[in-house]
């Protein structure tokens, strides 16, 4: 199939199922033009590594001269004046960007229900959520709307929807990929992640977009291996699973069974699989919510109606009223809740009780995660406690919604790489995902082992 044919097919698929609402916008003409150019390059034999890859971007990744609004009203009318480092690297290797994808507002959410552009639907069961926050990106790969999606994963926002939609979702090591051009939610957790239908595609995209970048001082200068060239497992591995995850109260029986079956399969193949204790699991969500909301409250302060985006159309007496009206109108309720929580935990009288304590606990979680990797190559765990839930099911109960991230946040708190891969379905035919975590910068081993497990 030529690039042009492929782009046409994807555009057709997107248009055929508008109710999925995976894309906020498709760059139809532009993608077709580029496809023609790349077809010519392929014919001439000088095409880049990603020639023919049709890629969608979550609406938090900058693409020069294209709208960008983190699925939020507050960025109404905003057009990015520059491209993210990842976008530039994709384009330099001849990828085709097909459009921007729906997500929870400012990447805050686990169901894609917090989007100013409306809910998105899981293609496996349209009455269910795709997960979030990168819901649209997961659906796009699931429903054959593009080859690859780039999302962002702050607490599971790539892996959780990947599990719900039955696709591969990778969150690399924190600092593996430049964040320049990624709209910040919680800077010390945010990671650009990759959705794909197979490991090889994900590995290839990772090797293109990862690595040093002068625009982001926090990015690692570690060399980037050719991940896609080393996807076979040649030795027996040591794998840990966490007692607290499989004994977790709300864990859906079919998911538990899938994890157990996987463990048995691995043992049968000669790998060592052992249970380890991880008593800190119960602190992970509180630590995550304190630290990410603290950072978010500061990161989202720039959306003030002064320089760009939405400003209230109502009259205002003074500056403060302009801020209040603009931000109350522009931000949805979940974003407002997190800004308020973050402002609270950073306030002088509560700083030590919350922020400082959570920082200390984050270090402990990192250290004890690190300890596990002294003895094991991977940690195996479910990606989510349940399969995709019904649209609206958790809308009344925020805490229930937050629990959807219980198994994914550890990798973000610790900063380690993690991947969710599809492993069968539950009784209702909904996809189940299992998750592997590895030590810092061991994406090569992680991808190879995930490839073997799939």
């Amino acid at each position: 199939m030529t690039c042009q044919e492929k782009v046409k097919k994807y555009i057709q698929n997107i248009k055929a199922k508008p109710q999925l609402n995976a894309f906020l916008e498709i760059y139809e003409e532009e993608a077709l033009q580029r496809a023609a150019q790349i077809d010519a390059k392929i014919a001439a034999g000088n095409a880049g590594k990603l020639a023919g890859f049709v890629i969608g971007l979550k609406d938090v990744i900058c693409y020069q001269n294209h709208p960008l609004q983190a699925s939020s009203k507050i960025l109404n009318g905003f057009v990015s004046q520059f491209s993210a480092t990842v976008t530039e690297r994709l384009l330099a290797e001849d990828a085709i960007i097909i459009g921007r994808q729906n997500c929870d507002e400012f990447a805050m959410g686990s169901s894609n229900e917090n989007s100013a552009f409306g809910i998105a639907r899981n293609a496996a069961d349209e009455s269910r959520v795709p997960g979030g926050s990168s819901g649209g990106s997961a659906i796009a790969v699931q429903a054959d709307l593009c080859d690859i999606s780039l999302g962002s994963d702050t607490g599971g926002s790539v892996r959780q929807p990947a599990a719900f939609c039955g696709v591969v979702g990778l969150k690399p090591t924190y600092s593996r990929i430049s964040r320049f051009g990624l709209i910040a939610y919680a800077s010390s957790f945010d990671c650009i992640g990759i959705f794909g239908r197979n490991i090889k595609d994900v590995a290839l995209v990772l090797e293109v977009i990862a690595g040093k970048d002068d625009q982001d001082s926090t990015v690692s200068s570690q060399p980037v291996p050719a991940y896609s060239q080393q996807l076979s497992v040649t030795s027996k591995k040591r794998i840990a699973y966490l007692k607290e995850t499989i004994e977790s109260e709300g864990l859906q029986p079919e998911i538990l069974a899938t994890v157990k079956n996987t463990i048995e399969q691995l043992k049968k193949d000669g790998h060592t699989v052992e249970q380890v204790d991880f008593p800190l699991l119960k602190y992970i969500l509180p630590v995550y919510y304190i630290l990410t909301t603290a950072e978010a409250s500061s990161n989202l302060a720039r959306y003030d109606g002064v320089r760009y985006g939405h400003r209230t159309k109502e009259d205002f007496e003074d500056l403060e009223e302009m801020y209040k009206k603009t931000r109350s109108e522009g931000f949805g309720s979940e974003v407002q809740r997190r800004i308020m929580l973050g402002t609270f935990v950073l306030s002088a009288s509560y700083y030590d009780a919350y922020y400082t304590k959570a920082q200390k606990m984050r270090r402990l979680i990192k250290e004890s995660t690190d300890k596990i990797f002294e003895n094991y190559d991977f940690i195996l765990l479910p990606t989510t406690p349940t399969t995709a839930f019904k649209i609206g099911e958790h809308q009344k109960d925020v805490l229930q919604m937050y629990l959807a991230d219980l198994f994914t946040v550890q990798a973000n708190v610790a900063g380690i790489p993690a991947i969710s891969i599809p492993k069968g379905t539950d009784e209702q035919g909904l996809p189940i995902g299992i998750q592997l975590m590895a030590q810092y910068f061991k994406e090569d081993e992680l991808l190879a082992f995930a490839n073997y497990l799939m």
Partner: protein
Amino acid sequence: MSKLPSDNPEILNKYEIVVGLEVHAQLLTQSKAYSSDSTEYGNLPNTNISVITLAHPGTLPKVNKKVIEYAIKMGLACGSEITRHNIYARKNYFYPDLPKGYQITQDKTPICVGGEVIIRQKEGGEKKIAITRIHMEEDAGKSMHLAGETDSLIDFNRAGVPLIEIVSQPDIRNIDEAYNYLTEIRKLVRYLDICDGNMEEGSLRCDANISVRLKGETKLNTRVEVKNMNSFRNVQRAIEYEVKRQIDLIETGKQQEIIQETRTFDATVGKTYSMRTKESLNDYRYFPEPDLTPVVIDEEWLQKVKSSMPALPRELFLLFTEKYGLSAYDAEVLTASKEIALYFQELCKHTQNYKAAANWVTGEVKATLNKMTWHINQFPIKPATIVALMQIVESGKVSHSIASQSIFPLLLEQPEKTPLQIAEENNWLQESDSNLLEQIIEEVIKAYPEKVAEYKAGKKGIIGMFMGEVMKKTKGKADPKISNQLLTQKLEA
């Protein structure tokens, strides 16, 4: 109007002033603190900007290493300890001229800790003002409210321009010390070439923390922070006013009305006013900046900065007073500006007559700079030429007055000539030939027999009249010393 307690000098005298200053110095880097935007002053509004300065979504800060080096230099100049592991922090508050909604600064790990600034006292002697900390931060943009417009306009050219904040201990006890401290800070930043030190243009800004206490007390009372003073003189005026305000409150039993707050100084009326409590009670919610990795200053880097340090005003002051034997006053005048001090040092490479050299620089050279409003860089006469001029005075070829009043002005116009050339061309070389002089003196004495009689009768001062006549006859070229000797001899004979 009834008299205030502070109008009574006796009451005023019971109290001690306690002041600490926070000085913001805008750094002279080419680019901004966290982006590559230009810092050039005076460009059209909103031209030194980029997506980073404007805090567009997805942008990240980038550390400018020059800012770190400049901050280290200031720390080394104050004898501070340099922090090796520097963590940046966010200071959060909403204001339209602050694009990100937070300022990137340093909180718990300021780059320089401790140190001191030595100031010279009015009555002579020195005093050490201890430095608490120096940290790096970034400036905000400028809001402009045009007359007749309801909308405010914002210029973001200044947003992100690097600053260092130098925080002193509350060691300042009177307004002269405040003035001298600021003078010393300004001198330091100018010597280090890290800030132009211009307070009127806002590149040096000062906030004062002010409290008072009864003399002899050791505990600190509630302090008030005063902002918005745009000259050294206004800092003094603000302290003066605020001190009296606080004393009056204490003396009238209203001490509890002195609260920890921020007040603004209005220079037109010379008073401080409370800023809205909302602003002064701001909780800045500091936390470590997650977008910047901590900057580690290793030994090699520190040594590199150390080796690039210029001579500091205090070192030069000590050199001038101790080695060159100049008075503290002369040394002070010479070191007030780095360029003048360096010019003087250059002179001293060619002569050991340091006092005369100092007189030339503090006299004719400085007077010319003032008159022409020149910077020393524009001063046309080379140090070596000044020394040559000094030498023809020393060897008696010309008098000092010819040198300073006639040759020096011509050298300004023809700096390529030597002083001797100019003296020769104008026939200004001094008559030191005693035969010729004797002849002229005898003529003069003969011409005024009655004056000679007066002299002999004891009116010794009349010798001045004879000198004048000698000078007239020699067109000023007579060596005054020799003429005086010869005249005295003849008159006494």
